């Protein structure tokens, strides 16, 4: 399963809290709980890019997990 690159707008929408998705991958939920807050505190482009990279790395490293595949379908269609 392919994963959209970090430049895909959906990653930005997630970490900035502009759009939320009912995720199933526990690690992503826990990480996002922190990242969304971190972006609220520091919405600089550098921090947003760092948060997107962390989330992308998490999903990219777990593409074989069924819950990850469900999340990616949910986020990117």
């Amino acid at each position, binding site marked *: 399963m392919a994963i959209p690159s970090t430049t895909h707008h959906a990653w930005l929408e997630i970490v900035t809290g502009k759009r939320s998705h009912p995720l199933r*991958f*526990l*690690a992503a939920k826990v990480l996002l709980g922190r990242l969304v807050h971190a972006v609220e505190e520091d919405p600089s482009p550098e921090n947003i890019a760092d948060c997107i990279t962390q989330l992308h790395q998490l999903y990219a490293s777990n593409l074989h997990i069924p819950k990850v595949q469900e999340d990616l379908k949910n986020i990117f269609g």
Partner: protein
Amino acid sequence: MSQAILTVDEAKEAIAKGRVLLLAGDEAVLRSLPNGAWVGGTIPYFMSNKYGGLASRELVFATDITEVATGWELQRYDAETVAQVYVNAPENGFSFILIPASCPTHLSFALNAPNYEQFGVRPLVGWIAGVHLEDLGKITPKAINGQTGEVIEDGALVMAVTLPAGKAASLGIVNLFEQGDGDTLTFPETGFSAREVFVNGKRTNFAQYLTEKQLDTKLPLVADYYGALVNISFQGVDAAQGVVNFYAPVFSGIRYKHAKPVTDYVADFKNKLAQDCSLDDTRLVFSCNCILNYLYSELEGKKTQPFVGPITFGEIAYQLLNQTLVYVEMHDV
């Protein structure tokens, strides 16, 4: 894969056969076991298929992962090096971690795990070792390296488990607590204790607030992490000193709410499983639950099937959790 209560003789037999085991038991019991392919944490409370919840200083709870482990390695960390636990995780597998309660490594992990390098990239599951409640303050919790017999009071022992090709592990939690409808609480500082809190943005003394509101401290604070509800359990309220202590750290900036009451844990547990847990129990590898759920919900003699396992002083699913059931399930991929 199996999770079962064993006698000491049965545990010795399993070790002698070379089974790969995650063990839980009273310190004396674990110390009596021969070296082998196991790691253990001290705790004499368990949930079991046979007896339901029970306390025993004679029995051992064994999670046998022989069938799913194509390889394993025991790693030892201290309060600083535990930050590498995700980096050192197996490429295809999971890491099972044991940390004795209240040691510096426990505190360090609790505070810092969410910021560890490669957080969550590989499954990290485990629990905080404890003692019989009659022994609190008398003896210390331990983690034991079954390969060498080494017993540690401070540090973390990790069994890094490699899975066969075509298998993958994922973690799940069952948390019966939900955010209540009351005030939104945020804390000015991260820590295991809090003197002050922002109640809907207004700064006040937290101990005084809890006392005035007569909030039940058996119910945790609950934070919503993007749909995952994460509890912070109360250890105690020192009204004289104006300090509230927790079993896990509150994090500054995170929004908490006091939990709604849980009236009947076992009934609510069954409802929760029916509602939102699509677990096939044949895929279940490991589970553990919290000593506070065991105590407050009076789980002795009661069953929470398909989940069994040690009753712990803290649960770990990527980071430290409280009053939460944690499990590992296996997938064919």
